[in-house]
């Protein structure tokens, strides 16, 4: 087997259960703010995902934030979407990111500008996430997306993709995951999981398709900070599947934050038990303080 290109890859290949944490770069030019956020999660994650203008709203570039992460001696998972760049810009940035030391790359299609803070923007989507994966794989094999040879040093990433096991049509999600694996994804981070039964069904289907031998699956957790937030996600965030039992528990909790952490830990423990789950991806959505307790309980 080839040598792993990143710590995340090495840990997964060694069979370690990994923790990745999502960090949204600040909506300003402050390096200090990135550093602060990083120092809050550093000891509790094996790698940190830097989002690429999530919900199609402007924040500091995910590549810039990935470089700050590297400077801080920490491992970034650079998230890249197809929303804002055509195939020329995508390739240019990928080559540059590798030259600067980024090794984990997560390929996504990206939220549509219409749901973001600049709805008038031109949506690019020259490629989709599957095509982006094959573009990166091509560069690694020494060819540009146009088929022409890439001469000299090639990039080499630990390549990832995302999947939402709860988006419809459910049975096709597994095939789409397979498609992403075929296109070059080596690890998969999922949407936040609340419906454990449904997720387990998804896992078994993925296993039957032989996908879990091809990719490392890192299951997503979103610690609910409040009843209001959980309800909002259930009602308003497309593709979220939140069973009523969690909503009820949050509604009747004396201390909602404490209950939110409890729920996240319970979900995390259940996911850790499932065959095929190789790590947890924690999306804090600004609630960095919750991380230490959750990870300590799950490690």
């Amino acid at each position, binding site marked *: 087997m080839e040598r792993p290109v990143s710590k995340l890859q090495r840990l997964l290949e060694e069979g370690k259960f990994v923790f990745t944490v999502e960090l949204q770069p600040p909506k300003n030019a402050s390096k200090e703010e990135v550093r602060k956020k990083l120092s809050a999660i550093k000891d509790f994650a094996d790698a940190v995902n830097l989002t690429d203008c999530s919900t199609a709203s402007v924040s500091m570039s995910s590549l810039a934030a990935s470089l700050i992460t590297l400077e801080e001696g920490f491992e970034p998972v650079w998230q890249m979407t197809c929303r804002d760049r055509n195939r020329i810009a995508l390739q240019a940035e990928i080559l540059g990111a590798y030259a600067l030391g980024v090794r984990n790359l997560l390929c996504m299609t*990206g*939220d*549509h500008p219409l*749901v973001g803070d600049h709805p008038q923007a031109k949506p690019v*989507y020259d490629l*989709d*996430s599957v095509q982006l994966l094959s573009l990166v794989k091509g560069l690694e094999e020494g060819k540009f997306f146009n088929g022409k040879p890439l001469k000299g040093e090639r990039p080499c990433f630990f390549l990832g993709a995302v999947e939402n096991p709860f*988006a419809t049509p459910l049975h096709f999600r597994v095939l789409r995951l397979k*498609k992403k694996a075929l296109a070059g994804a080596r690890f998969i981070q999922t949407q936040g999981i609340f419906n454990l039964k449904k997720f387990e069904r998804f896992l078994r289907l993925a296993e039957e398709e032989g996908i879990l031998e091809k990719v490392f699956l890192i299951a997503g957790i979103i610690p609910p900070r409040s009843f209001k937030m959980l309800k909002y996600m259930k009602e308003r965030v497309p593709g979220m599947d939140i069973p009523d039992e969690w909503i009820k528990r949050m509604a009747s909790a004396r201390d909602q934050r404490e209950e939110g952490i409890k729920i996240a830990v319970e979900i995390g423990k259940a996911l850790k038990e499932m065959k095929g789950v190789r790590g947890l991806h924690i999306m804090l959505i600004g609630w960095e303080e919750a991380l230490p307790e959750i990870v300590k309980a799950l490690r």
Partner: protein
Amino acid sequence: MIVTRPKPLEEVLSFLKGFRKILVLGCRGCVAIYHVGGDKEAKALAQKLSQKGFEASSKSVLRQCDPRYLKDLKEELSQFDAVLSLACGVGVVTFAEMFSEIPVYPGVDTLFCGAQVERGVFQEKCRACGNCLLHLTAGLCPVALCPKGLLNGPCGGSSEGRCEVNPNKPCVWEEIIKRLEKQGRLEELLELFPPRDYSLAEGNSPREYVHGKASK
């Protein structure tokens, strides 16, 4: 069909400020079929302009997108200060290219290539992208109907058959999957769809096609 929408009267009036003699030029093509810019509409708009103090008259041609039907207007145009065209953008531009001496203004906004799915309801169906892939997608077009134009869809936001970006619209990829499944063709979707070739679409503008010749 090219789908158009009349511009608000105030907007049209703001273009025409300072002119006196106006020709409202209708078209008997797409805009006439859906009552946006045919003979009747051109006449009605000319009447409104007259009430606002203009000297306005109306006329329609068979198709403003064909120079053959425009060329006979030449003499008549000398009687007017400006033309308000009710054709789609193609008609307005074709007119402007032929008659550079008289100002021409658009009376409609050109929206998309679409179908009238029920009376008065128009939906975009084709993006005129120049590399048709409907043979792969059960006849439905993800380029036109998916907000992200995904070729390897659906994205992670489709929910119960609804689109993440426009929840009141169906997710076209879910429809494609349903149809291919019914036709026993779902396996075809495991193929990676190659990217679109924008040199056949807006990446190469203006596009030109010479009938009978391979061309971009």
